[in-house]
């Protein structure tokens, strides 16, 4: 049972490489910041909280789509780790 869980866990970790980690972090921060400001201004000008909510909600979904999935271009700079051969020697 725990072996299966470990497999699932390993499968769902889905890491990305280090430069992309930095990039995605900055990316999500910037998009959300701009989205928040835009949503506030748009809502205030139209005097509608509903517009603010929609605008910010869309920003959130877009950010999730851009940042969360491990796209191949986030995984181009994978590193060379210790060869697994040594693991069997242990």
């Amino acid at each position, binding site marked *: 049972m725990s072996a299966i*869980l470990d497999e*699932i*866990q390993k499968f*769902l*970790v889905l890491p990305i490489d280090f430069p992309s980690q930095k990039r995605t972090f900055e990316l999500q921060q910037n998009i959300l910041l701009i989205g928040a400001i835009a949503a506030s201004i748009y809502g205030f000008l139209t005097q509608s909280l509903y517009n603010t909510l929609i605008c910010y909600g869309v920003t959130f979904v877009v950010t999730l789509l851009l940042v969360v999935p491990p796209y191949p271009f986030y995984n181009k700079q994978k590193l060379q780790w210790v060869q697994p051969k040594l693991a069997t020697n242990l």
Partner: protein
Amino acid sequence: MNIRLELAKLLNLCFVFASAYMFWQGLSLFANTDSPIVVVLSGSMEPAFQRGDVLFLWNRNTQNKVGDIVVYENEGQDIPIVHRVLREHHSKSESQNKQFLLTKGDNNAVNDISLYKNKKIYLSKEKDIVGTVKGYLPQIGYVTIWVSESKYAKYTLLAFLGLSSLLGGE
């Protein structure tokens, strides 16, 4: 097995609960009420408050005004009721700090006398009032209602927690 390492891990887990609980306790003392934040459970104040809305209470005021929205509990019942003050009567002398209140839900046709226990026709500010509503957040508390009332929601939440703890690795 390193006992200190295990203890440190357990400590981190305990801190999560301890800090959340002490924050709540600190807030209770600050607002002088046993529940500084309540979730609306009934529709009797619609359209002002709907089920699932979160209300912030304050109970350091010695008297309420007519129009204040208050949360009260009947003796022996743990169900907080959110209604508006319809009438207030307080004594002229400053020393006697007694105030009698009659409440009503905005969406109800009649006042709350039928809800009061022991044939009372007024609430006592001192004894019955949990707090006065000062602030409001919409719908955030719906999760708690959803979880306490639907068993599917309970399973979904459990599954979600299990999955996230599995994926979180800790």
